[in-house]
């Protein structure tokens, strides 16, 4: 059995839209919720049609940054992430869901391409010291969302499993 490094992050959120950070000796995750206005500003400035921004502004966007602080490969795979709200699983749509949706709506190829780039990759091997990020999209809910993410490690994925739990994630709201 692989050794499992298990961290329960109990960081207190100072504000719903403030980035949360979970850090171990091997990995650091930052969670930065984006408000609907932030989303609209970003995508509208890049010429996204309102048909896209109207839908996106109703979602819960979290910008995630993953930093491999270890000296071995860390394997990120969103299939190994679980989200919960009020004790129940919160379903995250795969990026293919969104790409298929935009294509079905006949949205501009450039917008679809840019949108794809802004998402956190579904899977990515992080070399030592690499730090990459992107957005994850969840259904917009009130109250805290918890996330559990586990990462395989090592070139052959046979190293210890790193499990991160963060229970103070919020969908950001526009300020009045």
């Amino acid at each position, binding site marked *: 059995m692989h050794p499992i490094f298990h961290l329960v992050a109990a960081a207190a959120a100072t504000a719903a839209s403030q980035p949360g950070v979970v850090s171990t000796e091997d990995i650091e995750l930052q969670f930065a919720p984006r408000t609907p206005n932030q989303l609209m500003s970003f995508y509208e400035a890049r010429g996204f049609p309102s048909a896209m921004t109207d839908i996106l502004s109703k979602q819960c966007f979290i910008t995630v940054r993953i930093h491999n602080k270890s000296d071995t490969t860390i394997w990120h795979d969103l299939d190994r992430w679980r989200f919960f709200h009020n004790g129940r699983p919160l379903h995250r749509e795969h990026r293919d869901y969104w790409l298929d949706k935009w294509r079905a709506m006949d949205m501009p190829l*450039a917008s679809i*391409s*840019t949108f*794809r*780039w802004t998402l956190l*990759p579904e899977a*990515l091997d992080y*070399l030592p010291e690499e730090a990459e990020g992107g957005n994850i999209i969840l259904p917009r809910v009130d109250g805290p969302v918890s996330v559990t993410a586990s990462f395989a490690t090592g070139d052959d994925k046979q190293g210890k499993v790193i499990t991160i739990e963060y229970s103070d994630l919020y969908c950001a709201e526009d300020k009045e």
Partner: protein
Amino acid sequence: MKTALTLILFAVGPLLMQGVDAGPLEPPKGIRHYAIGPAPGFTLVDMDGESFDLASARGKWVFLHFWASWCGPCRAEMPAIQQMSERLVDDGPVIVLVNTAENEDTIFSFLAEINMELNSLMDADGQVTERYKPRGLPTTVLIGPDGNLQYQAIGGREWHKPEYIDFLRGLAGEG
């Protein structure tokens, strides 16, 4: 167009033909082996309206870099790429920048703002970039003289640092 934005899709120096094997050079930290097959071909137009066909670089190493102005790490990395290009002017790979899915005004404004002399190809609808299936921006791939993908770097790199310069110079010079 400002002279600062003169074309720098430069194939330079005595770039030698070599085989499929990427050779014994071990890449510096942050560059991974990526020998997955042929690099997808493309023809794109740069900001001066000049057409570039990837096939024209066959026989040389190609530093192919995908970027967008809205991408923070891309912006941060550009000066390093500029410096790298200046240091490799005689003995480096062909340097090709591809902007992903932005319009000409946006690209021009951005490159002028940061005083970049490098030109960029424009992948207006993002579909050339999609063919490379990179997993994040910026992404750089290194294409061997045989047209095969050999290395990949996801995210920004300090390309002007000696370890990267030496590696790229070594690739271009090995034969």
